[in-house]
């Protein structure tokens, strides 16, 4: 990356906007005491002063869109819950963060769990729910510990339980640990899993807003979406819409990872570019250049160095042929074999396919067989069209988006790196040395083993 020229025009103080992450550097950042010292639970007080319907309208007006991948407007999801239907309503927070590359909700919950809890209380008041759940993937025990503690603190302080802050609102909050299954990040599979079943997606309609958990009206929201609500209430929707663009307002967490100098979390207004993020953070590791990257996890079509200036918001990434997804910016440099990367992702999708829909279950299996052969130098040219064909037969032909996600890396890598596939076939093997891609490859140059 060229550094000096860019840095002056893009100072991080101007480009970044820490809100959820604003006090993660405080000692004991996860405690109620620290949270309250940073205006915690003030948004809730403002929310309780409104009527539930006004509150839904307010969140809708703020333009907050889901941060879990699909980008659906959060307030609209709440509005879909039928009122006066006599059934219990539920809020289920999707904390099953498992999309390859995605690593924002887990550090958020580890450092600042109360922002989620406050957001959940506000959401439950809006949709008239008295029981909310956090479905946390099981493989993150340090986060589970802090959620247990934060919920305990919230009950003790009167933010959960009966007649919260004298408002008449009652709310029980249950933390539920999953047991290892990527598919449970899909909202209807998550609901089946929370009901004690195998995590398999349901056919929609009916949508969860009508028949969700226990066949009752249910809102399923991502962690970051709900955790963003208290700040909107506390500082106002005008403040929120002053960031980002008209259709993608607000701030969000961008997760930079891979062959970069400073991997980590960067909270910024929607619409920042990868070039700006790399320029402010030291760029790719010294002596290397960006080869390909994902804008929002492995299920979003990959980008190359041609896309460094794509605005990272819902519309900008969409217009460039991919999806904003979870803003998981996995960056790979020129030492990385794209066939190896795609093969591994495809093995992941084959492993995690729940098996319910034939195109996804069988298609991912056959993609893996072909890719392994190509990577090992046993492929044929006709295999490349076959890959495209199989991916086409998975894409859009299953109940849920897992199959679409599996097709994305195939389509996009063949689009941008077809020659590299051909090289594996004509050269009868992989031309890359995996040792050069490791995190320690350049550190130990003088002590080559």
């Amino acid at each position, binding site marked *: 990356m060229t550094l000096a020229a860019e840095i002056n025009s893009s100072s*991080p*103080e101007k480009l970044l906007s820490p809100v959820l*992450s604003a006090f*993660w*550097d405080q*000692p*004991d950042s*996860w405690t109620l005491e620290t949270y309250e010292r940073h205006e915690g639970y003030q948004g809730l007080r403002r929310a309780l002063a409104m009527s539930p319907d006004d509150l839904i309208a307010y969140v809708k007006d703020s333009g907050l869109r889901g941060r879990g991948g699909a980008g659906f407007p959060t307030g609209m999801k709440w509005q879909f819950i039928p009122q006066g239907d006599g059934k219990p309503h539920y809020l289920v927070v999707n904390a099953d*963060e*498992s999309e*390859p*590359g*995605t*690593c924002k909700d*887990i*550090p958020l919950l*580890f450092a600042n769990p109360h922002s989620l809890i406050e957001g959940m209380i506000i959401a439950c008041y809006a949709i008239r729910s008295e029981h909310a759940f956090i479905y946390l993937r*099981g*493989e993150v*025990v*340090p986060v*589970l*510990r802090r959620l*247990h*503690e934060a919920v305990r603190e919230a009950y003790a302080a009167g933010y959960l339980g009966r007649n919260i802050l004298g408002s008449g609102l009652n709310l029980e909050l*249950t933390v*539920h640990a*999953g*047991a290892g*299954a990527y598919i449970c990040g899909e909202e209807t599979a998550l609901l089946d*899993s*929370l009901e*004690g*079943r*195998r995590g398999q997606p349901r056919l929609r309609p009916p949508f969860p807003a009508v028949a969700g958990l*226990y066949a009752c009206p249910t809102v399923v929201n991502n962690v970051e979406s709900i955790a963003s609500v208290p700040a909107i209430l506390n500082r106002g929707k005008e403040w929120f819409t002053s960031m980002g663009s008209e259709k993608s307002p607000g701030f969000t967490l961008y*997760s*930079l990872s*891979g062959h970069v*100098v*400073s*991997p*980590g*979390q*960067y909270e910024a207004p929607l619409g920042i570019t990868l070039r700006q993020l790399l320029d*402010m953070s*030291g760029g790719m590791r010294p002596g290397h250049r960006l080869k390909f990257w994902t804008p929002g996890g492995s299920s979003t079509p990959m980008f190359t160095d041609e896309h460094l200036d794509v605005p990272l918001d819902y519309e900008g990434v969409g217009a460039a042929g991919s999806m904003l997804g979870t803003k*998981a910016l*996995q960056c*790979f440099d020129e030492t990385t074999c794209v066939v190896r990367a795609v093969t*591994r992702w495809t093995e*992941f999708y084959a492993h*995690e396919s729940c098996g319910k829909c034939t195109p996804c279950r069988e298609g991912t299996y056959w993609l893996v067989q072909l890719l392994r052969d190509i990577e090992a130098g046993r492929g044929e040219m006709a295999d490349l069209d076959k890959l495209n064909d199989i991916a086409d037969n998975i894409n859009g032909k299953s109940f849920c988006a897992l199959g679409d996600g599996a097709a994305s890396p195939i389509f996009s890598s063949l689009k941008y790196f077809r020659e590299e596939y051909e090289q594996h076939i004509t050269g009868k093997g992989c031309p890359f040395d*995996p040792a050069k*891609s*490791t*995190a*320690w490859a350049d*550190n*130990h140059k003088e002590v080559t083993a």
Partner: protein
Amino acid sequence: MTENVSLGMPQLPAPAYPDDVRARLEEDARAIIDRYPGSRSALLPMLHLVQSEEGHVTRTGMQFCADLLGLTTAEVTAVATFYTMYRRKPSGDYQVGVCTNTLCAVMGGDAIFEELQEHLGVGNNGTTDDGKITLEHIECNAACDYAPVVMVNWEFFDNQTPESAKKMVDDLREGRTVEPTRGAPLCTFKETARILAGFPDERPGAVEATGGAGPASLVGLRLAKGETPQTRIVHPRGEAAGQEGA
């Protein structure tokens, strides 16, 4: 005799837990069931609970869940076999999972997994003879900014190298205290399973262990606050990275 030959015949009902064990587990199970409007929702945490008793999900454990929830053992087995965190055979005190999803694999996870297999003399899902370590490769664990990542009993060991990972498993086998980069000092797999069943970790200091956010979680915040000199373009990774505090 043919007792060692599996004929695929229906098995006899699983033996029950001893009375005292059952009474203790039943009390825990009732507490779990009480958390949910529908009792079947308790099944996943209850399978974690039976793992905390025996270290893996046994036929006895599944029968126990079925009895308490009014399900058939077939329904319970269908669920227990769907999720990867339920172990189906006796395994080690420490579940060591090396992330080999694309990003971690490329950053060195493949090399770590390979060297650990050789070092421990076991393959994927194999357990060392001393019963201490079960090794497996795992999928993305939401810590890509700390790649390559190794999980032990689902605590984070960030920015690993083959050397750091081998030292860590040696320490575990020698009975030395091992502390993750993010999370609490390791307890056994069974004790971890109890936390997963929804019973908070009561050990003093467990919640606050390793401080607030990890170092990579803070890079954006530090830049935004002007705390990071912008001329610094070489990030110290490798040797020091594994020991960084909060």
